[in-house]
């Protein structure tokens, strides 16, 4: 049986992975690129191999894998290594269970939502259960603590709910309180916080009222938003410890402690900015070579790209990512069943979230969370997971005509 491969996706991912190994070589100045290269070869092989796995298997394995994923997250909380403890050491192999748990969770949600009809998904029962499926790993990962990864589960869930049939209005209701938190967050807006928050409350209420013309809906939304905002303000003022506030303030104004916790962001911005339009040249980045930029080959690999290859290099990488994300979502539209379609959308959303948060971090529009840049950051678990996801997408594409 001959399978049709999504060559566009495969080529784009292969380019990203190759590019990643190359940049890890430049950023690390040591031999770590070899192990990354080995992982890359294995990962791409795995991705292609998955195409030939019978489709039914993924559907059947979705829940068991989810259970296994949750178990591994519990195990890492107890026996994890590293600081913070995010790794499981099996012999000389260090694995990050959270990476595999991402795929397992997306598979589980995809199966759960796929089993429901679109109409059912618009009801509260399905939504609550789907949210619970995501909240369990979120809570476990947040305990590590790894806030970035925890939030990424939510980032995958919401587009999947939308895709599965949840009404846009409900999606809005689900996300509005989160946005309330953001818009009422005093350190972010400082003196303007009450104005920004008030504007958001009024605008969202007016839009809903105009769209639905149902007063109780509008009032409910207003109540939910207001309480989310007020609780945020209250917590910020009364419950956060000094160092916790400091950590958040550092994200918002890294220059306030140039030698302390703001160092990474400042050095990353200097690296990217000093790259200019065309960069300092491959292997010529002084920010990474002279170790001003910490974690250059892991979390801040994009800074190395920006420094050595400039705006041109940044655009190239972002274009590849946008193409891959589009391709993921596109595969979702051609899938031959709801499970496969949702799986594609979930994986694509997860990827988009990672890219946005990681790149945003390196240029100072997102906080430092420790989320790796897919395909590019050094790290076997992350690379393997992302290629697994690509494998699943290739599989869905290859099987799109089967019923």
């Amino acid at each position, binding site marked *: 049986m001959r399978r049709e491969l999504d060559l566009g996706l495969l080529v784009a991912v292969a380019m990203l992975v190759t590019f990643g190994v190359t940049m890890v070589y430049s950023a690390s100045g040591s031999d770590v690129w070899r192990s990354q290269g080995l992982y890359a070869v294995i990962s791409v092989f795995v991705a292609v191999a998955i195409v030939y796995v019978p489709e039914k298997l993924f559907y059947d394995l979705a829940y068991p894998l989810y259970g296994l994923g949750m178990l591994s997250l519990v195990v890492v909380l107890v026996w994890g290594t590293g600081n913070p403890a995010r790794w499981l050491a099996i012999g000389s192999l260090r694995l990050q269970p959270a990476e595999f748990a991402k795929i397992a969770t997306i598979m589980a949600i995809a199966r759960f939502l796929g089993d429901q009809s*679109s109409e059912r998904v618009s009801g509260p029962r399905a939504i609550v259960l789907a949210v619970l499926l995501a909240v369990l790993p979120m809570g476990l990962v947040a305990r590590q603590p790894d806030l970035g990864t925890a939030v990424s589960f939510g980032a995958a869930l919401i*587009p999947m709910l*939308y*895709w599965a049939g949840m009404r846009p209005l409900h999606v809005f209701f689900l996300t509005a309180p989160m946005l309330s938190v953001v818009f009422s967050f005093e350190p972010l807006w400082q003196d303007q916080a009450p104005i920004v928050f008030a504007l958001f409350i009024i605008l969202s209420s007016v839009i809903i009222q105009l769209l639905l013309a149902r007063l109780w809906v509008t009032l409910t939304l207003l109540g939910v938003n207001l309480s989310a905002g007020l609780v945020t303000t209250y917590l910020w003022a009364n419950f956060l410890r000094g160092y916790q506030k400091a950590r958040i303030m550092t994200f918002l104004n890294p220059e306030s402690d140039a*030698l*302390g916790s703001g*160092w990474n962001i400042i*050095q990353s*911005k*200097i*690296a*990217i*900015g*000093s*790259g*200019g*339009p065309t960069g300092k040249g491959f292997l010529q980045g*002084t*920010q990474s*070579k*002279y*170790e*001003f930029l910490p974690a250059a080959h892991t979390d801040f690999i994009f800074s190395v790209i*920006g*420094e050595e290859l*400039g*705006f041109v290099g*940044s*655009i190239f990488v*972002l274009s590849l*990512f*946008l193409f891959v*994300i*589009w391709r993921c*979502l*596109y595969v*979702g*539209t*051609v*899938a*031959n*069943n709801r499970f496969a*379609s949702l799986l594609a*959308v979930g994986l*694509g*959303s997860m990827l*988009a979230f990672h890219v*946005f948060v990681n*790149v*945003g971090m390196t*240029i*100072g*529009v997102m906080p430092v969370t420790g989320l790796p840049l897919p395909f590019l950051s050094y790290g076997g678990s992350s690379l393997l997971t992302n290629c697994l996801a690509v494998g699943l997408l290739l599989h869905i594409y290859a099987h799109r005509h089967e019923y």
Partner: protein
Amino acid sequence: MDPEVLEDWARKLRGLMTLAGLLFAILLLRLFHLQITTADDYAKESEDNRITQKRLKAPRGLILDRDGEVIARNRAAYSIQLIRGSRESDAQAIAALEEATGESVKLGKRGRERTVRLKRDVSFPTVAIVEERLRDEWPLDVEIEPQRFYPFGALTSHLIGYLGEKQDDLTGPGGRPYIAGDYVGQTGLERVYEDSLRGWDGVGYLEVDVRERVIKEHPFPDRERAPRPGRDLKLTIDVDIQLAAVNALPDSLAGSVVALDARNGAILALVSHPSFDPNVFVSYGSQAERQRLIQDPRKPMLNRGIQGGYPPGSTLKMIASVAALESGVTDTLSTFAACAGSLQVGDVVFRCLNRDGHGELNLLEATEVSCNIYFNHLAQILGIEAWHDYAARFGFGAPTGVDLEPSELSGILPDRRYHQERDGWVTGHLMNLVIGQGAMLVTPLQMARYVAALGNGGYLVTPHLQGDAPPPVRIEGVSDATLDIVRRSMYRVVYGDHGTGKRAQIEGILLAGKSGTAQGPRADDDAWFVSFAPYDEPEIAVAILIEGGGGGGTHAAPVARAVMEAYFLDQARHGAMAVDLDGRHRGGS
């Protein structure tokens, strides 16, 4: 799938892609801002990161004696530096250094500098500890800087002075600022010639990594500027004479020796005893020693040659001789009323050294035996005004203008007014002044200049330590004939049968001098001797003072001899060396 479902998915794809597009647009705009709009600012910051500007300290000019012997030079000193990181890493590095060296380290205020000097001028074992054990693990580094060193130590300390760290006022002469921690001349020649000794610092650049490890030595050769070393300072001092003077002075007593070139005022030796090691002031960890020096009751820091005021005793008598000869009060052969051992002036009885009386004396004889009564008689006729006039012409009561200390003492040359304002005028004051007692105070340097003028034909020289000699000034109203008689009287002090200064005699060279035994504030008299040599054409003028030294002829004259001997030995050696080199040159060709 259902066409309806497919259509729904396609619609949702557009929605999600719009959202993704918006998010990516945010990234794109931000990247455009960083890499295009403000790229230059970040390029500058990136350069600031990796390029360290380094001040290339200009080596301070050397100080040499007149034969080229190095009196002040620079040695390498090692400092321990901290490359600043976070507050915690700084503290950890300092703790590691403290533990390894067993010494406490203080970190000053946090400035903007990336490196902070923790310990200056550390010992070699400390350098080894940091280099071998600490540097790889902690952000510590060793820096070499030039540090002043005075090879002759205490021998030249009062002349050369010493350096100290500049801390608060960082302005320099000519608007050339200092950086906190720079060494600047605090006293002596180091201070006087600071501007020409310090040189011009240069600028260098290093390409470094985050721990200030050097990656590349000269990233911008065009932007670098080499330091210009300070100008060397060649002195008129001769360390051999200086050494001879120190050795000749009694170790237990304070004293001073000044030796001038009698012709032009070049200072050949300027000794103040007790002395101190100036290296104590430039080396670290000598705080206690410095404190001890400053509090020492023997005042080793005081430069007695120019800052000590003493009654000159009989060495001053030649002023009266000059005044009397010039005003016709006496001549060489005339004698005065005989010395009976004492003289009553008003209510006070003045006594001579010889209690039985010297009998009748002329000026030459009176100087030879240093008869007080003779000079009292002279002074009675002269009067205070004439005496004061001549004393002032020989430079007493005024600074000599030596290029060493702004705090040079003027001494005191009292006149009638001086006493009227204090204790009222009586002729008895003049009786004291004429024999160098009473309120009269002089510095040894003033005495050396005075005796040089007596020897060199009446020229008042300006004592100086370097450079061209300021032209000597002929003292007005002092004739050659007068000076000839005074010189002869001083000759007899050394060679006369009853001369008080016989101990100053040198084999093979004629000289003239005058002893003094002055009653100062101390229990024992101060011993003085002033002299010049050779007698016919004086080259060297010497003033010796020993606080509480007793008789000048007995105790100060031998010191003068030692100093002059050293001078003539040095001259002979230079002459012999010239001949030697000549001969060798001829032999070689």
